[in-house]
């Protein structure tokens, strides 16, 4: 996620440079043919351009809005994950009434499984192997058990559920508390499912294909509408207008995939670290990992 005030040109330019460069050459050719070559039939009235530009503006606005909805939903889901992680830790610490010698172990196990869940969910969404990180959080037998599962975060939720069931069977929880634990786990399952839905379901391809096609077509028409009035200055004006449409097209494409390992992603590394710090402090640990700060204006 970009947190710096301004977006550096080095981020925008590589994405639009090829299209803009080709358009500039095309615009220059049109201007030269019209002014120097006498091909006056190339000029066209501005009316079709205005109408097409308005239609594309609506189309691009709708597409960008749909992409933003996905991006914002992803961020909201991770905000919910932060809240439910704290809730589960609070429940584990305050609702279980185990004997003094066992209470510490039960709480630690549940809270660390929750930390492992958020780490593994982040890795799951990014296509990353979670085990090097989990090795520092969970004991080896648990890791070995988790390696058998394709969906590690779902397996961790199952382990947590089994731990809670064991506590219930031993009489450390009553059925009301068990239900509240189960509600929290269900919310975590829902968050994971929603993140997987965003990750695995792209925006309909028509939303991607037609705006791009129409923007390209529009950019080809722009110099034809400008050349009669602007002459050899056409490439400059035409490229600026084209840039505005191309950037709108690019923004939508950037943010439509919030778990795609780009700078536009939900900052899952930072969020998972914040959750870990909070939960370890809830457990009473004094030494917690350092906070993550934006690197060069970007949070990952």
């Amino acid at each position, binding site marked *: 996620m970009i947190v710096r005030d301004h977006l550096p040109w*080095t981020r925008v*330019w*590589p*994405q*639009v*440079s*090829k299209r803009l460069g080709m358009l500039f050459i095309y615009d220059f050719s049109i201007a030269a043919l019209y002014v120097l070559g006498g091909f006056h039939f190339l000029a066209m009235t501005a009316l079709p351009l205005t109408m097409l530009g308005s239609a594309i503006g609506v189309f691009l606005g709708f597409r960008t809005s749909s992409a933003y909805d996905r991006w914002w939903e992803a961020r909201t889901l991770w905000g919910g994950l932060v809240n439910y992680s704290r809730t589960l830790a609070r429940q584990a610490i305050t609702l279980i009434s185990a004997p003094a010698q066992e209470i510490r172990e039960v709480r630690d196990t549940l809270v660390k499984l929750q930390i492992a869940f958020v*780490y593994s969910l982040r*890795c*799951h969404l*990014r*296509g*990353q*192997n*979670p*085990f*090097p*990180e*989990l*090795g*520092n*959080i969970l004991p080896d037998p648990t890791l070995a058990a988790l390696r058998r599962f394709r969906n590690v975060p779902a397996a961790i939720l199952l382990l947590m559920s089994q731990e809670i069931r064991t506590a219930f069977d031993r009489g450390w929880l009553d059925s009301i508390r068990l239900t509240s634990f189960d509600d929290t786990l269900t919310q975590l399952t829902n968050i994971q499912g929603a993140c997987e839905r965003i990750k695995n379901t792209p925006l309909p391809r028509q939303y991607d294909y037609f705006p791009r096609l129409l923007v390209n077509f529009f950019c080809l028409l722009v110099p034809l509408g400008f050349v009669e009035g602007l002459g050899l200055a056409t490439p400059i004006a035409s490229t600026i207008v084209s840039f505005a449409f191309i950037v709108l097209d690019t923004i939508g494409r950037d943010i439509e995939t919030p778990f*795609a*390992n*780009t*700078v536009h992603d939900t900052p899952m*590394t*930072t969020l998972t*670290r914040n959750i870990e710090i909070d939960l370890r402090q809830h457990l009473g640990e004094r030494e917690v*990992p*350092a906070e*993550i*700060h*934006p*690197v*060069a204006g970007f949070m*990952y």
Partner: protein
Amino acid sequence: MPELNILFTTNFSDSCFRAIRAVAQIADAFDIRLTITHATRCKPVPHRDLQSFFAEADHFAECRRITLDGAPGEAVAELTRNERFDLIIAPGSDRIGLPRPFHRSIRTQLIRNVACPLWTTSRGLEAADFRRPIRTVAVALDGWDSNLRHLELASSFAEKLGARLRILTVLPSISEGTLALQAAAPQPLHPDNAISRIEELLSHWHRIPAVDLAIGSPSREIPSMAAASSADILFLSEAQSTGGFFLPGITRTVSHSPCPVICVPSSLSGHFQWSFQKSPAVLPAPMLEPVYA
């Protein structure tokens, strides 16, 4: 002692962030010691930035972060002279959208000046899935390259991981040049002969790896073959990874590879070996001769 002492060089680019997933894949397969470094001769970056980069590594068994002062290529080379590393991670730089006719590739400098294998990536690995372990190790075998250290390292790498080893080799299209090269050869340049020759050279191996062969330009065919064989990592020699006389740079084979690449410099000393490698090396000395000679 770790199995792999890894040096991760970063300039905090998007490519470096994307490489994190591949490093995690290696960290799961090997017992690693990770050093994350940023070298610059301009304004030093805040230590906080270096601490926050690749925060995931704080949970790895061994991880440290150091800032180097100086030109990146030279500073990293200096560091590797003072400390032994088994692998240098150097992701490619981000696109800038402008031609860079006088750009000096830091990766090329590292491959040519540092006696250590270099791990790098091409663009477009955003969608790659690094959750599963490395199952297929590919190695490109150039028929006229007499330095086969990359084959030796790839073999050890695959053996350690229990992965399949695939040899990718490309015969050039027939031209006057190839006819001249073949004039002194004992056998005609034919795909069957090339495969037989490779199999003969590897005959002492316990399990002869699969050999994929294509005809055409190596820089085009090797990435295609790596994709077709679902390679998780590709080993290349220095000659296959770098090119250019006046302004040396990374070859198309690397930049178009569908998977991460480990470039093995030809300056790699005969004594260099990974700690998990069998000693003596897998390939006997007579193997180190041109395959199609």
